């Protein structure tokens, strides 16, 4: 199937979309239609998409949702249509305008969720957004989220993905995060869907000065997933932490793609991604740290560690550094390994069965990522979910009232 189906679809429903959506979002549609028509889906020859067959993931004949969001207005969240501030400087501003997948989202998204934390306000409780995929037919969802952290604000945002029905679901998500000076954000994304779900996520974060942003993406159960995260550090003394963990088995595929760009001096970034791959799962990680000319005293590190517990599991990893400044401290590294036989033997000598010992080692491997989560309640819950997942008890989302 060609990308024509999406262009044809859009030209047919263009007016309906425009009517149901708003000026803010409609203003970008023609431009992205042109980008998408010219470029089509990226092939595997495009470096960033080397490990993901995009055309195949988008080939099925999905029904596409065109209704506006039914999300209720809460203290910090509302539809962009109901925003109290002018969103023109924010919407589709830091998203990559040349990326076809992002363009497709911008073209087809009818509504967008705004999370707006005003100046010097600290959101006391985590803001949680649960996405539940439901439906009687194969469906594509174009989800758009705009996060605006004003100066001095602080928030924890948890976004979860669940699937209730066993249909093919394709989620194409774009999140834009604007962090003004001295704002502090913890953004979590947790995916617990099923084998028939495909997820494309593009997260764009721009930080001002004295900011700290921690983005944690956890793929606990999925079908095919590609998560991309790009951070631009535009103000001094800011920090960016990107962490991720992946548990994949059967034929699951997970691709994480990150870019952190240090544009100014005196910023720090750290990345830690850990994968546990079983059966015939395939994982990919491509991380890039880019230090611009003049971004002196940058301190950054990137680690990607992977455990392949079968001979069939495959991991592709590509840690990258590009430095154009001369006074920086940067490191990057990657490992792919198997189970430690000595540790397995030690545990078995204490009477622990081989399967239980393997499970303990796999859980231990990603514990580092989960332990790095500052929210205690979430951390405890994730330990429980991970343990269940490893035991194969988690075939659908855990603890969700809808299931």
């Amino acid at each position, binding site marked *: 199937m060609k990308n024509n189906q999406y262009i044809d679809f859009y030209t047919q429903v263009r007016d309906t979309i425009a009517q149901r959506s708003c000026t803010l979002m409609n203003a970008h549609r023609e431009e992205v239609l042109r980008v998408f028509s010219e470029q089509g889906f990226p092939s595997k020859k495009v470096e960033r998409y080397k490990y993901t067959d995009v055309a195949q993931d988008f080939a099925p004949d999905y029904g596409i949702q065109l209704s506006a969001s039914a999300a209720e207005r809460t203290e910090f969240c509302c539809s962009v249509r109901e925003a109290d501030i002018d969103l023109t400087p924010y919407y589709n501003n830091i998203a990559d305008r040349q990326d076809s997948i992002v363009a497709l989202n911008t073209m087809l998204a009818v509504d967008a969720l705004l999370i707006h934390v005003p100046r010097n306000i600290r959101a006391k409780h985590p803001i949680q957004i649960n996405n539940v995929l439901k439906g009687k037919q194969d469906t594509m969802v174009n989800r758009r989220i705009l996060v605006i952290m004003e100066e001095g604000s602080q928030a924890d945002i948890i976004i979860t993905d669940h699937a209730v029905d066993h249909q093919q679901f394709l989620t194409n998500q774009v999140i834009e995060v604007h962090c003004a000076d001295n704002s502090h954000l913890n953004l979590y994304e947790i995916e617990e869907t099923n084998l028939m779900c495909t997820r494309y996520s593009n997260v764009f974060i721009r930080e001002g000065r004295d900011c700290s942003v921690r983005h944690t993406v956890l793929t606990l159960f999925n079908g095919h997933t590609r998560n991309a995260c790009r951070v631009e550090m535009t103000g001094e003394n800011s920090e960016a932490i990107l962490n991720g963990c992946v548990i994949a088995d059967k034929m699951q595929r997970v691709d994480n793609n990150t870019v952190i760009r240090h544009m100014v001096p005196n910023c720090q970034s750290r990345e830690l991604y850990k994968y546990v791959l079983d059966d015939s799962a395939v994982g990919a990680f491509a991380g890039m740290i880019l230090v611009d000319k003049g971004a002196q005293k940058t301190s950054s590190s990137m680690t990607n560690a992977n455990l392949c517990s079968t001979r069939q599991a495959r991991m592709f990893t590509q840690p990258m550094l590009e430095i154009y400044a001369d006074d920086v401290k940067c490191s990057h590294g990657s490992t792919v390994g198997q189970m*430690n*036989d*000595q*540790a397995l*033997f*030690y*545990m*078995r*000598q*204490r*009477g*622990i*069965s*081989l399967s*239980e010992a393997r499970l*303990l*080692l796999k*859980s*231990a*491997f990603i*514990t*580092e990522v989960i332990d790095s989560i500052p929210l205690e309640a979430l951390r405890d819950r994730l330990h429980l979910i991970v343990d269940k997942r490893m035991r194969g008890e988690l075939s659908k989302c855990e603890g969700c009232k809808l299931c």
Partner: protein
Amino acid sequence: MLEIRNLHASINGKEILKGINLTINDGEIHAVMGTNGAGKSTLSNVIVGNPAYEVTEGEIIFNGQDILEMSTEERANAGIFLSFQHPVEIPGVSMTNFMRAAVNARYKAQGREPLSAGDFLKLMREKRKIVELDNKLTSRSVNEGFSGGEKKRNEIFQMAMLEPTFCILDETDSGLDVDALRIVAEGFNKLRKPETSAIVITHYQRLLDYLKPDVVHILIDGRIIKTGGPELALEIDGKGFADYVAQ
């Protein structure tokens, strides 16, 4: 309790044990001494079923049962315990989770209900005292960041938790200062029941002063070349292996 007949074993195709015969009765402690590379650690690994070693000939009978067909964990749950010469560090697995998995596996094998979290922690506290193991250590990952002495104490602590009937102490004294050695050895003696048997592998008399072996074997080049009483260990301590290596 344990009977080894004509045991041959190799690792990576190299034969290390070349026909070991050994009978250990209930309640006996046997010391095994020998030169470096003689096969002492291989013997202990083969008894507990380390998959890295291959048994090419012979049999090991434990309480009337041939254990060579049993998996490592089945042997452990039958009551065989190895205090490792080099305890393995397992980052990310907490001592508590590790011990709970081990104790519950043992209970399951014995047909008993698993311990409740409260009872389990109580048991941990109780047994920790025997080897004076610091509370902080049990909240860390298995052996991670433990000093050499702490690792050996941790081995005896695990022994206390699992209450084996047959123990192998593989150079448990190496790397221990005199006080730690006393704590570990006295800990072992406290845990011992009248029917508990053990193989103690060591290079030094000092540990045997505490453990008082009934029988001493000298293992050279994969064979037991001499067996005697406690006086044999004293003789080795004084004169070394020169007389036996020459044979």
